[in-house]
């Protein structure tokens, strides 16, 4: 079976929702040794470890997440744990271990598991950053179309999460200009961009910068993402 037909098969299975294990097996054999793709997947895995643990601890914290919010917190936790499992099995022995996290970021968010507003704020930070992080890696996966597709399939799920969390915080589901809504500005810098394809769309369309900026999410590179996530990572354990 050629690599292409393996992937096409795989893609069909992934579409059917039954292919995660097959995907992982083939990916492991084919790409775990390709350092650039494996690096991207390990980077994604690190961020998914962070999100999964955050939601798991949040749901376990007594009297933190109100019952009305639990259905969507549980749904998000389910997805983040599934992303961890998928990436871990894909990478096999090449998978990085789970870091040790400090969700207080050295005390800056000391009440993250006792105050739901702090918790929601961090959830928004992690989700919006996750969207930008996956987007920033898309072109690094073009040589591996099946893996690119899977990354895109995770990317849009993170965007769904982000919008839902933003909504509970009274924010729009989309990002207006570079509005950080009280979160560290680094998470949103660059989101104010209104020039796409070399055309300033505000000038071209006469639509406000706020609306044009909302219409596009902007990517972030690895170093920028680690600058944002770094304070929550106590030790990488490798």
């Amino acid at each position: 079976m050629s690599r292409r037909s393996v992937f096409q098969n795989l893609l069909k299975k992934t579409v059917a929702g039954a292919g995660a294990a097959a995907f992982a097996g083939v990916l492991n054999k084919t790409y775990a040794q390709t350092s650039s793709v494996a690096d991207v997947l390990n980077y994604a895995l690190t961020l998914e470890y962070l999100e999964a643990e955050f939601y798991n601890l949040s749901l376990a914290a007594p009297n933190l997440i109100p019952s009305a919010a639990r259905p969507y917190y549980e749904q998000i936790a389910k997805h983040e744990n599934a992303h961890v499992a998928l990436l871990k099995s894909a990478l096999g022995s090449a998978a990085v271990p789970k870091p040790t996290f400090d969700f207080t970021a050295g005390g800056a968010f000391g009440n993250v598991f006792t105050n739901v507003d702090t918790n929601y704020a961090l959830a928004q930070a992690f989700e919006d950053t996750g969207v930008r992080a996956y987007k920033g890696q898309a072109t690094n996966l073009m040589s591996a179309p099946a893996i690119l597709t899977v990354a895109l399939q995770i990317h849009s799920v993170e965007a769904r999460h982000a919008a839902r969390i933003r909504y509970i915080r009274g924010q729009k589901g989309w990002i207006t200009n570079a509005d950080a809504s009280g979160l560290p500005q680094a998470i949103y810098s660059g989101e104010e961009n209104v020039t796409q394809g070399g055309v300033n769309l505000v000038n071209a369309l006469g639509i406000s910068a706020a609306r044009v900026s909302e219409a596009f999410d902007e990517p972030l590179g690895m170093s920028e993402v680690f600058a944002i996530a770094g304070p929550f990572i106590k030790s990488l354990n490798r």
Partner: protein
Amino acid sequence: MEKQQTDPMATVEGLSGKASAALGRRVFMRYIGATAAAGVALSACHSELVDPTATGSARPGDAIDLGDIGSKDVNVLNYAYALEQLEAAFYTQAVMTPYSGITDAERQILTDIRDHEIVHRDLFKAALASAAIPGLTPDFSSINFNSRASVLGTARVFENIGVSAYNGAGQYIRTPDYLVLAGKIVSVEARHASIIATLLEPMSALFAGDQVVFPASGLEEIRNPEEVLAIVRPYVKEFLNGRNGRR
């Protein structure tokens, strides 16, 4: 990594300089003319971007062939352009004739989304220029614009389709800048899908429900072009045709 922070098509000489100089604020008709010229510059730089068939406006009943979606980038862009045309027309109508009992918050959300879809549509139109498929004629006769359930239910269908279409077509894009651009758009469509579903069922998991995100893998559903076009065909008076992509 840092270079991805820059504008995705900024390296396309000619589009940036000529277009932005020529484009006047709030002069929409002039914009359409100016960007046609910009698009010529774009296609000159990307030999893949050749005119497939069509310009101008379509007539109801015409067949519009998007071709093999994966065979060249211009086909992927036209595929996206077709979907964005449909979305923009739908939200324009929804905002123009709001359903009874619409709340201020809902009106704001639908207006925001309308503007986002118009921006997406017009960007693709400008980028494709003379290679663009014609303007489509929507057929929204199956939608009751006076019914909240009908409007939001249709919005949910369109957004879910849009996300699955972009995700499915990403692998066919050959030009990195276009992949980044598609990525910038698809996550906004996913945000729309999430909020529309939240309006329909505020305290449920529907914003990223098991129907659209496979529970076992946490992966969002993808659709190939033939599946997508079959779903949207009833909403367009022309006959939209296209084949699944090949790389």
